[in-house]
């Protein structure tokens, strides 16, 4: 194809160049100007080729598979680093600030004690955050197959793990019978742990009053289909404007002084529920508490 000098750099000309349909480009015109235009046109052709290769590579399943593998390997490396390499220096800081306080605390100025407490708290918070991050990142990769599991037993397991917190906060937990559901047992316990811990954390000043129930409430109606389980607390609640946001990672609606959470509990809960094919949502009112509800498939016959 032969183009006049103006055409080579016109939109149509550019489109032709990028389309890669040209074998030869001859530009007519004054030598100097033509050379410049040819150079510009050649640049455009190279750019077109590069762009085309890039697009092809992105669409090539093999390339994608390699990229995916690479990303997965990176993620695994990060997860291992988070679980092992990062824990060690943190353990040193948390333990030795504790020791400093225990053995030399009375020799320290109150202001120095305060600095030390901040340092220790920071280290402990980071430890909890890393642990939650790890839990979150392992929900998919370490998830087991879904089997009939007693939701009541999972609540028992969660309450056992949270024993110290329940005692410390003098929480009362009211429970209605729950059905057997199709779930990964370990994750179901984790789910209840996250929600119950959340309920106790956001209790406000009064001892937490938590209720666990479900719809439909009648055991006879459990067979088949799904069940909606609800965890309700009478605590700080939240503004419904934030109803979606609260399930995002690291979201905190309260200051660190009010609440000592890692901001991961609800994100973990959502990830687990979604892995089980369910949905999760929350309703709340500031000062009047909140209810987190989620659906799970009911196990056909008993476990």
């Amino acid at each position, binding site marked *: 194809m032969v183009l006049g000098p103006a055409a080579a750099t016109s939109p149509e000309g550019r489109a032709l160049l990028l389309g890669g349909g040209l074998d030869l480009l001859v530009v007519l015109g004054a030598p100097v100007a033509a050379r410049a235009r040819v150079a510009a046109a050649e640049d455009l052709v190279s750019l077109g080729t590069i762009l085309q290769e890039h697009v092809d590579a992105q669409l090539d399943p093999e390339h994608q598979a390699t990229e995916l593998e690479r990303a997965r390997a990176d993620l695994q490396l990060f997860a*291992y680093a988070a*679980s*092992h*390499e990062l*824990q*060690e220096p*943190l*353990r*040193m800081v*948390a*333990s*030795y600030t*504790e*020791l400093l306080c*225990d053995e030399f605390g009375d020799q320290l100025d109150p202001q120095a004690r305060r600095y030390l407490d901040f340092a220790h708290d920071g280290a*402990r918070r980071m*430890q909890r955050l890393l642990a939650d991050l790890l839990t979150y990142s392992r929900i998919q990769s*370490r998830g087991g197959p879904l089997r009939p599991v007693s939701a009541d037993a999972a609540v028992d397991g969660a309450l056992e793990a949270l024993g110290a917190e329940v005692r410390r906060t003098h929480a009362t937990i009211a429970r209605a019978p729950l059905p057997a559901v199709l779930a990964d047992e370990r994750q179901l316990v984790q789910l209840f742990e996250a929600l119950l811990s959340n309920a106790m954390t956001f209790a406000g000043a009064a001892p937490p009053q938590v209720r666990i129930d479900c719809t439909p409430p009648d055991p006879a109606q459990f067979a088949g289909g799904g069940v909606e389980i609800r965890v309700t607390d009478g605590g700080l609640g939240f503004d419904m404007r934030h109803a979606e946001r609260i399930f995002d990672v690291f979201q905190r609606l309260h200051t660190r002084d009010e609440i000592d959470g890692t901001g991961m509990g609800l994100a973990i809960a959502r990830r687990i529920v979604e892995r089980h094919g369910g949905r999760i949502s929350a309703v709340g009112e500031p000062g009047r508490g909140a209810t987190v509800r989620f659906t799970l498939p009911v196990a056909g016959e008993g476990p």
Partner: protein
Amino acid sequence: MKVADILLVEDNPGDVLLVRKGLERARIANRLTVATDGQQALDILFRRGEHADAVVPDLVLLDLNLPGIDGREVLRQIKEHETLRKVPVVVLTSSDAETDILRSYELHANSFIRKPPTLDALQQVLQVLSDYWFVIVKLPEGE
């Protein structure tokens, strides 16, 4: 309860001190021997060279990641040895990676414990270990 001979195999001096403190606070009567790498641990256990008079420990606390000969190799050699294999070996390590846990039990570790995040928690773990291995459990007499 007799004084327990404990061999701690740990290269991080920070962790060594924490175990000493933890045992002290939990009031566990013990003689703690520390090996800071795998080779030293094996020399002590097999009573080689300067360690010819070493006592066979009642319990081994073993970190997995050691310079040179690593903890997994130490574990393997202990559990393959016809007399040393009866010594309880508790892996006490930073990692909780599934591969590490599996490998440890495959090599016949008696238990796998992830190092607790604080001294207070470590003290509680050591208390439980002491109660379990030195009070509740019966270990064979002599060597």
